C-alpha cells in the first residue's frame, strides 16, 4: 500500500493506515516495513468497530485458502508476518470517505487473506470522480 502512496496523492486522496496497538508499535511497524505513510494507533479498536470491520473465526484465519494466499503474498513481496500485535482475530478493511462524510467505496475483509489491492481502491476512486 505504501508503494502506491504517490498514485493516491495524484488522485487527490489522502491515504492513512490504522493499526491495533500503541504509537510506539506504530512507529516500529513503519520503521520495520520502510513505510512513509502516517500510521495511526487504535489500541482499543474503537475505529475498527465504527468502520464495521469483522472479528474473524477460526476458518477466517486458518482456512487452506487463507494460508495459500498468505504464502503467495510472502513470495510476491518477500515480507513475512511477524508477531501479532493486538487482537489476533481482528480483520481489516478500507473505507474511502468523501469531504461530505459519505463513504464512497468500501471493502471489509471477510477473512485474513482478503485485502483490497491499491489498484482496486484507486480504480473505484477514479470511477467515482468521473
Amino acid at each position: 500500500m505504501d508503494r502506491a502512496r504517490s498514485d493516491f496523492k495524484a488522485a487527490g486522496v489522502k491515504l492513512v493506515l490504522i493499526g491495533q496497538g500503541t504509537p510506539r508499535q506504530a512507529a516500529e511497524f513503519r520503521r520495520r516495513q520502510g513505510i512513509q505513510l502516517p500510521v495511526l494507533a487504535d489500541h482499543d479498536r474503537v475505529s475498527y468497530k465504527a468502520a464495521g470491520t469483522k472479528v474473524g473465526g477460526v476458518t477466517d484465519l486458518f482456512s487452506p485458502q487463507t494460508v495459500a494466499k498468505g504464502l503467495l503474498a510472502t513470495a510476491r513481496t518477500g515480507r513475512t508476518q511477524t508477531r501479532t500485535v493486538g487482537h489476533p482475530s481482528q480483520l481489516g478493511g478500507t473505507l474511502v470517505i468523501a469531504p461530505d462524510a459519505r463513504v464512497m467505496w468500501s471493502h471489509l475483509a471477510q477473512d485474513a487473506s482478503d485485502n483490497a489491492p491499491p489498484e482496486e481502491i484507486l480504480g473505484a476512486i477514479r470511477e467515482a470522480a468521473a
Partner: protein
Amino acid sequence: MPAGRYPRPPSRADGLAEIVLPDQDGHDVRLGDLWTDRPAALVWLRHYG
C-alpha cells in the same frame, strides 16, 4: 464486535469523524479532519506485522 459477524460498512462516516487516535509520533489526529477538504482512504490493518 462478535466473532464471525458479517462485516457491514457504514454508508456515512459520521460515527468515525469524532474519533481521535494518536499517530506514530503520539500526536492526536481527529479522523474527521482527514477528509475535510479532499477524500481520504482509511485502511485498517489486521495487525502491525
